[in-house]
C-alpha cells in the first residue's frame, strides 16, 4: 500500500519493523493470564519501553516520543503484522493514559505513566458492576469523603486483567443525592490495598481474563482522583471514546488476520467460501483506510466500535468455515474466534452503540 509516507514516517516504520524482527520472542509467550505468562509479558513490555516503543505518542517526559498519530497507526500495523505478543498493559496504555493526558494533572501523569510504560504497574479497568452493565450510570459502588482522600466500597465485575494487575481505575458514586450522571468520581486505586479482594472469573476460553473486585472501605488519597470529584462521568466518557475507537483496536489486528485468511483460502480455494473471504478482506481494508482518514476527519467512536467488532466476528467465522472440520482443533483460529466473540459485548454492547449512534450522531429522538 502506497500511503505516500514522508521520510520520518518511513524511517519510523522501518525502525519498528527491524526492532521487532530482531527482538520478537522465538516461541510464543505463555498465556498472559497465567503466572508464567504474566512475567514473560511484563518482561516483553520492558524491552519495548527500553527501545522507546511502549507508547510512541506520549510526551517524551513520560516515556513516549511525542510521535504524531500517524506513527501510532504505523506502530500498530507493524506490531500485528509481526505477530508480536498481546500488550499486557493495554488497559493502562490505551484507556487510562489518554484519559490522564486529557484530564489528569502533570503530577499524576509523571507518577503513573512511566511505570505504566515499563509494565512495572499493570492496570485493570473497574467500571461494570453486577447491576450496572449497559446501564453504566447505575453504578452503586461508593466513594465516601474522608480526611485526605476517599474510602471505596462496593463490587466491580468483568474487570479485564484484574487477576494479574497491580492497580485499577474506575467510577464510584461520591454523591448519591446528585443525578445519575452527576455525583460520580473517577479514581485510581491499588488492587493490593487493604480491603481489596479479587476473584478471577474463567472466561469462555478457560482463562481467567477478567475478575470481580470487592472493595471494603479501601482508602484512596486525593491525588488519585482524576478530574474534579463529581465530574467522573464526563471523564469516563472520554475513556469510552478511546475504548470504542481506534486506540484500543487499531487496524493492525484485522489487517493481519485478513491476510492470513486470504492465504488460508488460497491454499484450498473452495468457490463457495470465496466471497466471504473477500468481504472480510474488504472490511479489514475499510477499517485501515478509515484509520488513515480519521487522522484528518474524526469518525464517531460508536460507529468504529460497531464496525471492528462485527468485522472481527465475521472474519473469524469465515476462517473456521474455510478450515472446515480441522477448525475445531486449530488452536490459533479458535482462540481468535473466542476472543472476537467478546468484541460486540465489551466497551459498551453493540446495542448500546447503536443507541448512541442513532441518538447522538444521527439525531433521532429519544
Amino acid at each position, binding site marked *: 500500500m502506497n500511503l505516500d509516507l514522508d521520510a520520518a514516517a518511513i524511517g519510523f516504520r522501518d525502525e519498528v519493523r527491524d526492532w521487532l524482527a530482531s527482538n520478537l520472542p522465538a516461541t510464543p509467550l505463555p498465556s498472559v493470564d497465567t503466572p508464567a505468562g504474566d512475567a514473560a509479558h511484563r518482561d516483553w513490555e520492558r524491552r519495548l519501553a527500553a527501545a522507546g516503543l511502549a507508547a510512541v505518542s506520549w510526551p517524551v517526559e513520560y516515556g513516549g516520543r511525542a510521535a504524531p498519530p500517524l506513527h501510532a497507526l504505523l506502530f500498530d500495523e507493524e506490531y500485528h503484522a509481526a505477530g508480536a505478543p498481546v500488550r499486557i498493559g493495554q488497559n493502562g496504555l490505551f484507556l487510562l493514559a489518554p484519559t490522564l493526558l486529557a484530564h489528569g494533572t502533570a503530577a499524576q501523569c509523571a507518577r503513573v505513566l512511566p511505570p505504566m510504560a515499563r509494565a512495572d504497574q499493570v492496570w485493570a479497568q473497574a467500571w461494570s458492576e453486577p447491576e450496572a452493565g449497559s446501564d453504566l450510570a447505575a453504578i452503586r459502588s461508593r466513594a465516601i469523603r474522608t480526611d485526605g482522600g476517599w474510602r471505596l466500597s462496593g463490587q466491580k465485575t468483568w474487570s479485564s486483567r484484574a487477576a494479574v494487575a497491580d492497580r485499577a481505575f474506575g467510577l464510584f458514586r461520591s454523591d448519591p443525592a446528585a443525578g445519575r450522571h452527576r455525583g460520580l468520581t473517577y479514581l485510581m486505586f491499588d488492587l493490593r490495598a487493604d480491603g481489596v479482594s479479587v476473584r478471577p472469573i474463567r472466561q469462555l476460553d478457560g482463562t481467567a481474563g477478567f475478575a470481580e473486585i470487592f472493595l471494603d472501605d479501601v482508602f484512596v488519597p486525593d491525588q488519585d482522583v482524576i478530574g474534579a470529584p463529581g465530574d467522573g462521568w464526563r471523564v469516563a466518557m472520554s475513556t469510552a471514546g478511546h475504548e470504542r475507537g481506534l486506540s484500543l483496536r487499531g487496524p493492525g489486528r484485522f489487517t493481519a488476520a485478513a491476510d492470513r485468511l486470504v492465504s488460508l483460502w488460497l491454499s484450498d480455494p473452495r468457490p463457495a467460501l470465496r466471497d466471504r473471504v473477500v468481504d472480510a478482506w474488504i472490511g479489514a481494508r475499510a477499517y485501515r483506510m478509515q484509520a488513515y*482518514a480519521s487522522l484528518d*476527519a474524526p469518525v464517531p467512536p460508536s460507529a468504529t466500535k460497531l464496525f471492528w467488532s462485527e468485522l472481527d466476528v465475521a472474519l473469524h467465522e469465515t476462517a473456521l468455515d474455510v478450515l472446515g472440520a480441522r477448525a475445531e482443533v486449530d488452536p490459533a483460529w479458535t482462540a481468535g474466534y473466542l476472543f472476537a466473540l467478546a468484541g460486540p459485548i465489551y466497551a459498551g454492547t453493540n446495542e448500546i452503540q447503536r443507541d448512541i449512534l442513532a441518538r447522538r450522531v*444521527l439525531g433521532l429522538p429519544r
Partner: protein
Amino acid sequence: MRLAPSTDQAGYAAAVHELLTDADLPGVASAWADGDVAPWRAMWSRLAGLGVTGLIVPERWGGLGGTVADLVVVAEELGHHALPGPVAESIGAVPALLAAAGRDGPADKWLPEIAAGRVVATLAAPPWLPFAADPDVADLILLAGTDTVWAGRADSAYPSIDAGRTLAEVSPAGVLASGAAGAVAQAMNMGALVCAAQLLGAGRALLETSIGYARQRTQFGRPIGSFQAVQHRLADVAVGLEFARPLLHAAAAHPGQRDRDVSAAKVACGEAAHRAARAALQVHGAIGYTREQGLGRWLTKVRALTLSWGTAEQHRARVMAELAKEARS
C-alpha cells in the same frame, strides 16, 4: 496521502450541491421519465458551467485537469441528488478513455465538446458493461473491447428499472483507437469509481431522508425514530456508509487506481447504498412506495448502479484474483 476530502474539494462539492438543490431535479427527472430530456440538457449545461463535465479533462482540451480524487467527491454529490444521465460514462470513463487513447483525432475532436457540456458521451464495454446507458441523450456513443475502441451505434434502448435511465446494446461503426488496452482498463476503473461514488452519495441521501422522516412521522403517539427497531437499522446504514467512503477515497487517491482497490470500493459502496435503500423504504412505509413521493428515484437508481460497471460478483472475483496474484509474487 490525505484520504478525507480537502477544503477545496469539499467547497467544490458544496457548490455542486447548491446548484442541484436549486434546480428542481424532481421536475427534471419526471420530464425525463415522460420522454422530455430538454430540462435535463439545460441542467447538464449548468453543471458544465461549474466545470463538472470537464473535471478530469486535461486543461489542453478545455477541462479543469482535476484528479480522480476530485472526481469522486463531486460524483458523490451527483449521486446524492440522484442526477439522471450517463454520469459515470460522460464525466468519468469516456474522458479518461479519449485522453489516454485518442491522442490526436478523437481526443481533439470530442474532449473540448465534452468538457463544455455540448456533447454527452456514453459507452458500452462488454462483458463488464454490456449496455450503454442513456443512448437517447448521448451525442457520442463508444464501444470498447479489450484493446480496441470503436465509434458505436446504439440499438433500440430498453427502459431500465430506474425510470430516469435507458440502456442499449451497441454495435461497432468504425475503429477509433487500437492497441488501447491500458486506456480501456483505466477507463473501466474510472467508470466504476464514479459509479461507486454515486452509490455512496445516493446512500447518504437515503439515510438523510429516512432520518428526517423518522423524526417527523408519528405513530403510537411518538415519532417512529424513537423506536429502537428504526434507530438500530439506521445506525447500521450509517456504519456501512461511513466505512465504504475511505475505500472509495483510497482507491481514487492511489496513482493509477489499482483494480483491487477499485473493486473493493465498488462492492462496499454498492452494499452500503443498497442497505440504505432497503432501510429507507421500510422507514417510509407505503408513502415511500409511491412514485409521487420521490424516494423511488434513489431506490431504483441504487439498484441500477449496483448492477452497472461490474456487478458485486464480478468485482469480488477480481479482488480475489488480484490478491492471488500478489500472493504469488
